[in-house]
């Protein structure tokens, strides 16, 4: 049962082959059995079964809601009423949220069951899940490898089939990169498509939530639930949400697929390059035309991002001061000492590093050289995409330069860790939708991700391309041994 997609589970529930309670219990058992992966921070077994029972009762006399009785895991960045929402940090390890994020409300209203909250890099700052206060997550494909980050717990949970699907958030690649490294499907929507209300903020102008699933079809189902205008989010876009499942089966004949030369240069591992080349061939066979394009400024996306994201983060994380909620240091001399000790003990090393970079680049005398410069560069990067989409319909490239690296391999070298997001960051800066889908395994037997980037609000087209690709290949059906 755990091998099934959501589309298949819905059918099984509808046909009465299984109840939501049985389904939920099956996944809870798997979560329990694979605790060594450390994919979850909070497991809500009792509440999940309670919700499943209510869903089964409801199904007896009411039409099922879109995700009726389907268990889902949520990244621990979404505020969930009555549950600890830790964001992977000691700072919020005791924070029981008094409200639900809009995304969580949507899932509840759609009839989905909450299995638990997944592990993540602290405050979503990381590409390996190693910055979590709760310890690293293991990659189900290779226990010595990282699952990617920051949505590493969600990616590992789906890859290990501890949950049929999970939510993630993506500021610089935090959905796509772990999806690639764990061999699953992950979609970061257009900025403004999914409400940010109730999602603990990392970098407000970049953060976007999205689904992490086995298939593009499942991602379409979840995005149908997650997307939509939210009056509580001033950056949410008031634009109708299409039915993302409706266009999955459209043909790809004449589709113009752009290959940016900057995504295939030095630093791209040979096995990854090979897998992407093979995917290009598959799409050609499906009728797509290949176009060579260029995103010249995207090579500077990482430096640009490491000014903007830490700057916003340094301000966003100022609210964690030990006054109204969360961690407060046990001993302190006075107010400032309370602030300093609370924040130094409550935040981990990487978070402190980014707060300091952000405080520095915004400070008097440096703003123009760093922050303003980065905002200008951001414009150039976005303009590159604008030009590119005059020549093609979707952009294709690798999600990451390599397959999953080993735990500990990059923890002492933040810059080399940052460079892992070199192909994912540009879409965040431009606010565009991006997707990662499995494209085979590398020489080390670890998954390779194929990235698709679309024009603003063209999630439906990305899902269509991904779905057609998944109809023609079976990379997404591969499962790690032992799961």
């Amino acid at each position, binding site marked *: 049962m755990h091998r099934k997609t959501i589309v298949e589970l819905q059918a099984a529930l509808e046909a009465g082959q299984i109840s939501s309670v049985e389904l939920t219990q099956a996944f809870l058992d798997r979560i329990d059995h694979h605790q060594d992966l450390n994919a979850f921070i909070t497991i809500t077994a009792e509440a999940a079964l309670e919700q499943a029972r209510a869903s089964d009762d409801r199904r007896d006399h009411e039409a099922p809601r879109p995700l009726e009785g389907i268990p889902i895991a949520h990244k621990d960045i979404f505020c969930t009423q009555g549950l600890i929402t830790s964001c992977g940090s000691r700072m919020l390890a005791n924070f029981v949220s008094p409200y639900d994020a809009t995304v969580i409300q949507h899932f509840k209203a759609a009839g989905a069951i909450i299995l638990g909250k997944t592990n993540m890099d602290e405050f979503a700052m990381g590409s390996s899940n190693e910055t979590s206060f709760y310890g690293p997550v293991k990659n189900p494909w290779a226990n010595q490898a990282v699952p990617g980050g920051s949505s590493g717990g969600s990616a590992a949970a789906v890859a290990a089939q501890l949950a049929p699907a999970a939510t993630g958030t993506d500021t610089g690649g935090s959905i796509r990169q772990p999806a690639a490294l764990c061999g699953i499907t992950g979609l970061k929507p257009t900025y403004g498509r999914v409400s940010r209300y109730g999602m603990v903020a990392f970098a407000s*102008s970049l953060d976007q939530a999205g689904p992490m699933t086995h298939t593009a079809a499942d991602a379409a189902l979840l995005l149908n639930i997650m997307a939509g205008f939210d009056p509580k989010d001033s950056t949410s876009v008031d634009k109708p949400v299409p039915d993302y499942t409706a266009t999955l089966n459209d043909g790809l004949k004449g589709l113009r697929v752009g290959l940016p030369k900057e995504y295939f240069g030095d630093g791209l591992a040979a096995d990854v390059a090979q897998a992407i080349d093979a995917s290009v061939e598959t799409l050609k066979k499906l009728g797509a035309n290949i176009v060579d394009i260029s995103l010249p400024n995207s090579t500077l996306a990482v430096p*640009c991002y490491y000014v903007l994201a830490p700057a916003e983060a340094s301000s966003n994380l100022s609210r964690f001061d030990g006054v109204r909620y969360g961690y407060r240091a046990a001993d302190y001399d006075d107010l400032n000492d309370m602030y*300093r000790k609370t924040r130094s003990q409550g935040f981990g090393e990487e978070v402190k590093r980014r707060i300091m970079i952000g*405080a*520095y680049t915004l400070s008097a005398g440096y703003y123009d050289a760093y922050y303003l410069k980065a905002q200008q560069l951001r414009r150039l990067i976005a303009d590159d995409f604008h030009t590119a989409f005059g020549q093609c319909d979707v952009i294709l490239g690798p999600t990451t330069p390599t397959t999953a690296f080993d735990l500990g391999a990059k923890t002492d070298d933040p810059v080399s860790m940052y460079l892992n997001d070199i192909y994912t960051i540009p879409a965040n800066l431009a606010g565009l939708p991006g997707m990662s889908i499995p494209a085979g395994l590398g020489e080390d037997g670890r998954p390779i991700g194929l990235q698709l980037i679309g024009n603003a609000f063209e999630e439906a087209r990305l899902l269509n391309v991904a779905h057609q690709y998944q109809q023609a290949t079976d990379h997404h059906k591969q499962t790690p041994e032992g799961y």
Partner: protein
Amino acid sequence: MALDPTDVGKIAELARLEISEPELTSYVHSLTQILDLVGQMNAVDTAGISPMAHPSDSPLRLRQDIVTEQDRRQSFQEIAPATESGLYLVPKVIE
């Protein structure tokens, strides 16, 4: 752009972080590395380019001036580190 321990100390104070001596050395190193990375931006001439603060061009949406929120002090203060008589408590602030 190389930072020295004094710079890092100042930044830490601005961000209300307490950094121990051994940590300081490591932060000086890694923050300098990161500033070298972001310094690569200077390879591009951005003179005259309008800064991009938001991914979309849509204007600010304004809401009607109506009260929509109820008093939830009790549930908010259940999760607070220290409260008394409905107030959040912090160490004495001297003005």
